[in-house]
């Protein structure tokens, strides 16, 4: 029975971690455009000659 004292909190902590990660990703807008994300993986990277800062697009949230 002593094992339960460690295992139950450990299980809940790990599960809670997953739940927290999901809620965070939901709040940070990662579920806003599911279709777009599926498409974007097909886009080739820009050639290396362009500066790196230009080819990363930040999520645009108007203030």
């Amino acid at each position, binding site marked *: 029975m002593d094992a339960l004292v460690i295992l139950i909190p450990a299980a*809940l902590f790990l599960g809670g971690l997953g739940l927290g990660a999901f809620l965070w990703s939901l709040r940070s807008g990662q579920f806003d455009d599911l279709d777009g994300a599926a498409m974007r993986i097909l*886009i080739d990277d820009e050639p290396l000659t362009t500066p790196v800062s230009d080819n990363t697009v930040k999520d645009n949230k108007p203030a």
Partner: protein
Amino acid sequence: MTVLDSPTISEMGPPGRDCCDMGTAAIDAVTLGAVRNRAPIPDLADPGAYVQTDPAGIRHLHLFVNGLQCAACIRSIEGSLKSLDGITAARVNMSTGRLAVSWRAGGPTAAEISNAVQRLGYAVAPFDPATVHEIYDHTASLLLSSLAVAGFAAANVMLLSVSIWAGAFSDMGPGTRNLFHWISAAIALPAVIYAGRPFFHSAVGALRHRRMNMDVPISLAVLATAAMSLHQTVLGRDHAYFDASISLLFILLVGRYLDHQTRSQARSAASHILGLAAGSATVIDEDGHHHLVPVREVVTGAYVHVPAGGKIPVDGIVVGGRSTIDSSLVTGESLPLDAVNGTQLHAGTFNISAPLRLRTTAVGEDTLLAEIIRLMEISEHGRTKYTALADRAAALYAPLVHLLALAAFLGWWLIGDASMETSVMVAIAVLIITCPCALGLAVPAVQVVATGRLLRAGILAKAKDALERLATVDTVVFDKTGTLTLGRPEFIDDQPIDTDTLELASALAGYSAHPLSKAVVRKTPKSRFTATEVEEVPGFGLTGVVDGSLVRLGNAEWCNAPVSATRRPADLELWLRRDENAPVRLRFSDRLRDDARQTVAQLQKLGLRVELLSGDRSATVADVATQMGIDTWRARCLPTEKCARLSQLQSEGRRVLMVGDGLNDAPALAFCHASMAPASGSEISQSAADFVFQGEHLRAITVALDVARSADQRVKENIGMAVLYNVVAIPFALFGLVTPLIAATAMSTSSIIVTLNALRLNLVNRNP
């Protein structure tokens, strides 16, 4: 999708709307369909009026983009915008079909940005994010986060419960059991309060209006279970039902989330369509300067410039220029109108061939458009109030359950001589076992499957109870132009015309946006001729030079053709004349949809009465009605007359399905029992209709009817099963025989059976 057939994106031909298959997401195609008819629309709405500047001096612009289909679309739009100077971010959202652009002061103008996207072949429309805000997204994320919390809690509590059940047969001591109950309580109670919010809000809302809905017994059962379990836990007894309480919430949230997702897709398509309608107008001031202002700021008497290919933004009289107007969506008239000085034009029609100057006669509330919308709202109020089956069931079921629980309490306490505590426990057990879990799933599960099936067939179900209403119709009323017919002229080859003539005509017609020119290009898309020095004279036709000879394409007068005695005014024709050769006549007519006849016959075979109500001329309507085998028809109907006929049918006790596409059909669509509109129809009628179908086939109507009827069947079976389950389970609860194990298994089995029965809808009748 084509994406998968191509080795890499960069090899995928020129970016633009033809880069992808048409068979992709239904939503895209619906909105695409609405615009494709008229795209490209140059200068439709210069977006300057929609730019917002934040405190840091960064400008933001939001655009609806039509025709987004694949990765190449994202890449070409974002790539071409980022190559402009000063752009800080450009992000396409595929799911909503929106583009957000930000740039620094001194960068490009808003017009340059929208033109850059239009040049790639996408129609765009600016919008104000404040007015088209995603209220639905908020609900979706509330449901999703509730679902996540409920899922987490249900899984963990169930794990503990299984241990307790197993412990009952082995050596688990009361101390351990009680510890497990306390842990369950710590997990379940906050989760119930967090994840139950969607139900609690709705239940409180209903009670406040003195109504009953399914959420009242659901909330009551969930809260009662949790409270009783806590009470048992505190006393150290074994009747704790935390698992039932939280897994019940989880199952119901799954149903509700799926239901919401399917409908919000349809809704966002609709708001997209409406967003396109909001435009701006170019006003000419006294000094002759052009200003771009939002339509609502145009005043009566102002002079407005309308470019060729643009939408007329206001009601007005032509004071300069000559052009051709396509008003088919507003009046149902299939012939293009000639607009000269003094012609009255309505907002929402399209200027086809040349720029026009209008003097505004009406704005805002006084326009024909506003009048129709007002009529539509009145009709909506006049519509017989329909109560969804689930709500009717709830109105009956909820009081019954509550009375039963009360009876159980009184029975045990007064007659059975039990203690107060036992009586309360039995009453709560009755509440739990009768909690409409299966009943709550019975309708949404079927609706999710049914709307999914419709979506795959290219039909959007917009209203929540639309399927239920559609299942009960016994009369179908059609509009003619754009519904039974395609609503656009098509070339008819009733006499032999050689390919050279057609290709010659096509070479010239490619320069014009006139519906007849477009019909020529559709008939002969490829031409080996190239026309140069092409000029268009609105109201007459085109001239151009092909291989050194002068070619004219236009009306009889333009080509000096003999006016034939047999010509009727309704005939659509073009003449083609090369140098001084004899002119050749090309004939057009508004063609019936391919399967119109078949669909009408099929509907009649199903025992439905079919009628035709049109705003077009009697002769044309009579002709179509005969071809269709429709006995009852009316021509030259005004929007109010259409409504009057529908209300007459309704008073005869008929339930009418109206199918129409024009602005003039919108009040009728809002009035009748159920309604459908093609995606090629006007924005207003699409927003008024319960269903929007895409594609050129009317078969969508029979498909929708079939799905609605079998869905109705499933719903009734499901409710029947849920009731049967209750009839069996309630005696157990009444006699105090319910153990946690019985409650949990009974609840989940009935939910699973109901869900499986709903899924059956996907298996049978798979002949779309």
